[in-house]
């Protein structure tokens, strides 16, 4: 299958949604599940093939458009398509308990969101990257306003305004790059980026940093993120946390290493990541809305990832990518379980954790919390220990101390929530999870435990991804179209 189908199939399914709607809601829901399943199975098939893979459209790169899949993008492809499968199954339950919601509107933008995120990680052309960036943007604005109430629309409008500002910066950066180098191919830009006048190259880096940093929820520009999480439905929160934020993070570091910025700007990104981590975790402490709480927790974890991914050492980067995968699974688990809880208790206050009675959900939440905290035997532990090991190997002991100290703050609110769940006092309402959710949450929890007990299953792919990220020579060869 050509890599182009990763973009083409979701778009076709998205445009066919009105016809599927006429055929009935079964077809509509089934088509989305079928689509995400095809993409996921195809991504698994790519793990056995030789990487990188390229698909060119009509003209050979560097003049033509091409999609390149290397080890780094393969890991993200697996995460995105897996999340799509889980969320499309979860929506079966969601539309069953909320029969009056507009299903077609959700599926159009859900499929396009998957198409855009996958396009962003495969594209090897900075202008196409921008187009996919906007596709993901428009879909996430609309999905965050899916609840057409005050909160939903407000979050949609806020996200749209912030997103437009970010996209203006990125367009400006792309134009400056084109004016200086005269190409939009990522390979050629990477080769000639050092030839740009240093003053203009600083301006370009700053523009790209502001643009992608805003979307990837970095510290000074992430004030909007909790609002967006609060206004949108839980499954969309899960998508934002495990797909959209990760796609922007992918592009951020892809360009960071491709343009050879790691030696100059390593400390800068690391400090910004550390500040993101610190500020988010302390702000999370006194939140009373669960969605805002988990949004701040997501920001904090992204801060750790920014710290670890900018180090330019393969051990730390590999550990960070392990942590990223584990965080995606855990946050998806937490947000999906939270959706069930919010549906039954009709509240988003933090006190709902003390008001429900379900042994299954308690265990699921506990697994998610402990995995994000980094307690063995869950996958978050392996990710964090690998990051700390990488920092130790590069003699960066202050970073280790910092991560461990701030993790204590994180432990405070997660243990508070766990204590509320285990508290036997007060009136408790029984929560019915539903058959589909039971299986979905079991799968996610099982993955967390399996990756925690047998990390070598995943480390193989994260090592591959880390090497592809730090030494993009293979990627450059394909992006330049050498020997095709």
């Amino acid at each position, binding site marked *: 299958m050509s890599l182009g189908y990763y973009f083409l199939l979701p778009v076709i399914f998205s445009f066919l949604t009105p016809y599927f709607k006429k055929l009935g809601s079964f077809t509509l829901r089934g088509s989305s599940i079928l689509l995400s399943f095809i993409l996921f199975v195809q991504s698994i098939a790519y793990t056995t093939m030789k990487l990188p893979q390229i698909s060119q459209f009509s003209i050979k790169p560097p003049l033509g458009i091409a999609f390149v899949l290397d080890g780094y993008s393969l890991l993200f492809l697996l995460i995105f398509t897996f999340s799509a499968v889980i969320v499309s199954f979860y929506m079966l339950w969601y539309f069953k308990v909320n029969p009056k919601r507009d299903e077609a509107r959700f599926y159009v933008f859900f499929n396009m969101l998957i198409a855009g995120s996958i396009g962003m990680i495969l594209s090897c052309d900075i*202008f196409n990257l921008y*187009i996919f960036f906007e596709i993901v943007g428009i879909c996430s604005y609309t999905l965050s*306003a899916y609840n057409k109430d005050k*909160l939903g629309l407000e979050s949609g*409008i806020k996200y749209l*305004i912030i997103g437009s500002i970010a996209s203006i910066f990125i367009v400006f950066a792309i134009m400056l790059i*084109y004016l200086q180098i005269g190409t*939009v191919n990522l390979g050629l830009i990477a080769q000639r980026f050092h030839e740009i006048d240093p003053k203009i190259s600083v301006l370009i880096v700053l523009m790209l940093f502001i643009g992608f940093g805003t979307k990837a929820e970095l510290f000074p520009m992430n004030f909007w993120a909790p609002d967006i999480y609060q*206004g949108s439905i839980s499954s969309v929160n899960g998508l934002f946390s495990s797909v959209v934020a990760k796609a922007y993070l992918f592009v951020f570091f892809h360009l960071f290493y491709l343009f050879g910025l790691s030696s100059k700007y390593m400390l800068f990104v690391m400090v910004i990541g550390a500040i993101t981590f610190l500020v988010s975790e302390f702000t999370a402490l006194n939140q009373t809305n669960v969605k805002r709480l988990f949004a701040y927790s997501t920001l904090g974890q992204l801060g750790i990832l920014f710290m670890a991914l900018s180090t330019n050492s393969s051990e730390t980067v590999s550990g960070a990518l392990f942590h990223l995968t584990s965080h995606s699974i855990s946050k998806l688990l937490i947000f999906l379980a939270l959706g069930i809880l919010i549906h039954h208790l009709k509240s988003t206050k933090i006190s709902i954790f003390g008001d429900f009675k379900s042994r299954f959900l308690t265990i699921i939440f506990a697994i998610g919390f402990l995995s994000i905290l980094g307690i063995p035997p869950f996958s978050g532990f392996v990710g964090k220990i690998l990051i700390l090991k990488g920092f130790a190997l590069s003699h960066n002991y202050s970073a280790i101390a910092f991560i461990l100290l701030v993790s204590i703050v994180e432990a405070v609110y997660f243990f508070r929530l766990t204590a509320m769940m285990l508290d036997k006092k007060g009136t408790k309402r029984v929560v019915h999870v539903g058959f589909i959710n039971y299986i979905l949450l079991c799968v996610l929890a099982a993955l967390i435990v399996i990756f925690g007990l047998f990390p070598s299953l995943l480390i193989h792919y994260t090592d591959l991804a880390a090497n592809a990220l730090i030494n993009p020579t293979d990627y450059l060869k394909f992006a330049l179209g050498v020997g095709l």
Partner: protein
Amino acid sequence: MLDFFNSTQSIHAIIIVGSMALFFIGFYGIATQKNLVKVLVSFDIMESALFLFFIGLHYKVGLVAPIVDDKTKTFTGMVDPVPQAMILTTIVIGLAILALGLSFGIEYYKLTGRNDISKMNELRD
């Protein structure tokens, strides 16, 4: 006098100054306006400034538009077509975002009777 204005450098200077002025007009609008429609219009002004800047800097005196017909034998003496294609795409994307923003604004106005973005503060802890 007119020859002076017909040189590439002075045209570029005018375009840089003009588009920067336009950009800051849009920026001022975003920073000060409270009406959602006015904020969206300010975005469009900012974007237009970027488009003018990019297209303008790729124009050189004496070059023609890159349109190929039967009489075209050589491809010299034409401006670079890539920026124009890129800007066309960006204009379409900008239009889509503007339309989406306005539709959000209309829905929000129907629900609350307000379109003041400084009063959109219900998303809080």
